């Protein structure tokens, strides 16, 4: 977090901030459209007590803003800012978790960003994208232990939920983001420096 504060005035260009914000809003809306589908899925799973699976299965999608912001802006702090922004959009649109959405957004952003940080913010390719999916899963799962009361689940269910979440992040935050990055590079729309 220190680096963000120091670099805020010098390295964050207006255009980058706007791009980050727009990407977050777009992702927020795409998954807002998904809302009804998610609600049907979780309503169907609720009587069986399997609702957390619906949540874990789609978590990767809600977290896409972070790795996308990172690969587009290529700066420390982009992931956190992108995800917090996306969470703010979700909160303003009327998300089910109210203010907790913002807190979760912050945790998700930090979790995703950790992957890029481990590689020293030098690598923005698939290695870093997958690293961010791994750290994102671990960090958000620890958060869920507290926020979603996961500590009271049996061990077997926890393992199943963790695997579900990991698959979701690997797909949305990993495979899909790598594919998007390829498309962007092919199109050549983001040549800078």
């Amino acid at each position, binding site marked *: 977090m220190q680096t963000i504060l120091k670099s805020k005035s010098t390295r964050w260009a207006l255009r980058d901030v*706007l791009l980050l914000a727009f990407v977050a809003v777009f992702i927020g*809306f795409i998954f807002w459209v998904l809302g009804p589908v998610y609600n049907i899925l979780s309503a169907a799973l609720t009587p069986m007590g399997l609702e957390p699976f619906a949540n874990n299965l789609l978590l990767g999608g809600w977290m896409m803003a972070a790795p996308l912001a990172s690969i587009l802006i290529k700066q420390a702090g982009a992931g956190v800012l992108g995800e917090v922004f996306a969470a703010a959009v979700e909160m303003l649109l009327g998300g089910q978790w109210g203010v907790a959405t913002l807190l979760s957004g912050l945790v998700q952003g930090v979790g995703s960003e950790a992957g890029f940080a481990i590689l020293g913010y030098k690598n923005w390719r698939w290695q870093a994208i997958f690293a961010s999916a791994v750290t994102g899963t671990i960090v958000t799962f620890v958060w869920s232990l507290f926020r979603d009361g996961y500590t009271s689940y049996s061990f077997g269910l926890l393992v199943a939920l963790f695997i579900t979440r990991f698959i979701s992040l690997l797909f949305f935050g990993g495979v899909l983001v790598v594919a998007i990055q390829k498309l962007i590079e092919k*199109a050549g729309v983001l040549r800078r420096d």
Partner: protein
Amino acid sequence: MNPLMKFAIVMVIALELTFIKSVTINLIIIGVSAFLYLFLKLSWKQWLWLFILPLLPGFGSWFSLMYFGTGDHVHMAWVMLTRVFAYLWLGGLFTLKLTEERDVFLATLEQKAKLSATFVYALVGVLNFMPAVNQQIKTIRVASQMRGQTLHIWQAQLYFKAILSAIRWSQNLAEGMVSHGFTEGAPRTHLQVVSIAKRDWLILIIILIAFQLLLIPNWY
């Protein structure tokens, strides 16, 4: 009350709620919020929203904790059900009035919290674009449907096209802002100077201390 101060109180309590396993505390939060809503003159739609929205995630957690929980899972099931309501009702105190208070909130962020003007005005700009973003996503999907392709949530094409729009719009908006006189990093003067009343600070301190005292007894 200044919206940023309200926001600070709400966020601190929400963070604490995450780690507090108490049905009573959650119910107190819901009760106090409900009491405050009486003064906010909500529409019936907003009331409905407050009651219906948390049902699904709340009961989702409740059922799964009842079935698959271990230890004090019955207690935890009730904690989760009330917690979801507490989050939303507490947050609503800030978000439901935000449309009216948005300008003051952002101005406070800039003038009092010293957030860089780039971030604040980028926020202002993008928030105004939100309806257009919604429309643009529909346009992207319809455009590809006309070519006989349906873009699904798991397809990279959908996001790629959204990002193309984001890149274009961010450049246009940046140019627009600069051409209207926005200079990055330059000191700004303000037409409306925001001041935070001493009373607001007092309320913030009293509420937060009262909340900590509330946590001392061993509630259910």
